[in-house]
């Protein structure tokens, strides 16, 4: 795994973004691992995914004004780079193809979500 040298170091368990809070940046993991969690209806937190170097999160805040949909914490020491909404959208205006990389990942996530829904339906039928 490539370990990046830029961004900010987060200690194990340190919160990077919090579910329900507003935000105007997305984040790219440069090194280490982060955990994506969501509040469960039954109480507590539900693990959604681990993200590693090159993966990004918080991108929804760049495209819509909704609050964060999940909490992300460092799983072990992690290095994460913040990408400003303004800087990103300005560049996307000049170079729309920059959005393709983000769309690809978002498309993968929708595909995974569809699989998850299908699996969930099967087990409850």
């Amino acid at each position, binding site marked *: 795994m490539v*370990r990046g*040298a*830029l*961004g900010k170091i987060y200690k194990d368990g340190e919160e990077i973004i919090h579910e329900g809070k507003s935000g105007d940046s997305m984040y*790219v993991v440069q090194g280490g691992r982060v955990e994506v969690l969501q509040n469960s209806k039954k109480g507590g937190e539900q693990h959604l995914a681990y993200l590693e170097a090159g993966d990004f999160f918080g991108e929804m805040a760049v495209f819509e004004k909704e609050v964060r949909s999940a909490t992300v914490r460092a799983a072990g020491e992690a290095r994460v*780079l913040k*990408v*400003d909404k303004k800087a*990103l959208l300005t560049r996307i205006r000049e170079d729309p193809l920059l959005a393709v990389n983000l769309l690809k990942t978002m498309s993968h996530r929708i595909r995974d979500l569809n699989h998850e829904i299908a699996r969930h339906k099967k087990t409850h039928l």
Partner: protein
Amino acid sequence: MGLSGQQSVADSFSHLVEDEEKEFTLRDGSRIAVVGGGPAGSFFSYFLLKMAETIDLDLTVDIFEPRAFKYCGPAGCNHCGGIVSESLVQILAAEGIVLPRSVVQRGVESYVVHMDVGDVSIESPVHEQRIAALYRGNGPREGCKTDLVSFDDFLQGMVKEKGVNIVRKLITGVEFRDGLPFLDFADGVGETYDLVTVAAGVNSNFIRLLDDLPGDYEPPKTTRGYICEFHSSKEEILRILGRSVHVFLLSIPRFEFAAIIPKGEFATVVMVGEDLDQELVHAFLNDPVVRRTFPTDKIPCVCSCSPLINLGARKRPYGDRIVMVGDSGITRLYKDGIGAAFRTGKAAATAALFHGVSGKDFEKHYWPTCKRIVNDNRVGKVMFATNTIMKNSRLTRNAMLRMTRKEQDTAGAKPHMSSLLWNMFTGSAPYVEMFRGTMHPGFIYNLLKSVASSFFPESRNTPIKKKVA
């Protein structure tokens, strides 16, 4: 002429246009030569092949680069200060490109501005390391013992993974044969390509070969910069400079801009300006403000050069089947050359792949990106001229220092001057954006207030705390 006659003329005309469009379109098996394997050439190749992959187009890309960026010293050197700006670091991250630890010599979190009237540290607005200090080649000869990986070598590794061939041949001539560019090599063999991308910079002999080609490939205006590598231990460089880039606003005649950048066991001194010569370099290195920041008389300079720097744009950085990217064509004034290489490289690749490789295609789809940089540089010239006027007066130097200090010391204060200096030095924002910032009523009011207060002595003069963690 009847209606059918008019129809057939219209059909023939549209066929002619279609044929011409087809002739200048990259197809399966098209061959592209990229002259120069620095960032501009690598970014162009990377995005060309990445985008070709998404539309199932099979292209061959040969990068001609006689130097190997694995070597230390002049053999692998690319004559550059080696700063990747905050904006480019973020864009690379969004593109999925992670700069590894072995490439980044130092993550920069703050800039320290030095003047005869005092020093002030400007922190990154987000308090994280979003600027990378690195080597374009594998560093000075003395650095060979370290595990240094150059930025250019890292990018070449990335394009090799995409299928690019790195060709270590010297090009001795370029001409057109049957409408296609033909490259002559030093070994007497030559090859034809569908597109030649010139990414050789302004220090290469190749750009002189373009003079013989039809078309107006007038070279860009250049000046000399100065780069010097000072060598000591990693700990000593960190103790002296911390994690900050040090910039100087000095009233030395003809002096425009200089910075000292910490890079592991080296410190890179970079000077740029339109009228740079040995005398000015000497005056800078021996200036008391520079000496108190970095002991240039005690730490040895192990490698230095005076590379050419692009100061203006080519009038026409393209033609039929030829396009110039990075320094060979257009770059940002004094700053963010790697960022300009990225922008022009990707824009040229997009134009060539999705629109075609004729001069008209590049004019319509590549030139707008270049023009944005050209127009921004015009504003940049005004900004640098204003900066020269301000730094030449003790009163305005004092005002700049006080205004920046106040902003940095007051939590929640609007960082008018800090943002301006941060963006001027880091190259993170377009010059137009910086200019707009100076027109803000808050900026003007606070500057005038600082000028007025500069008539009185300042109560505080605390030393800068160095970040070494």
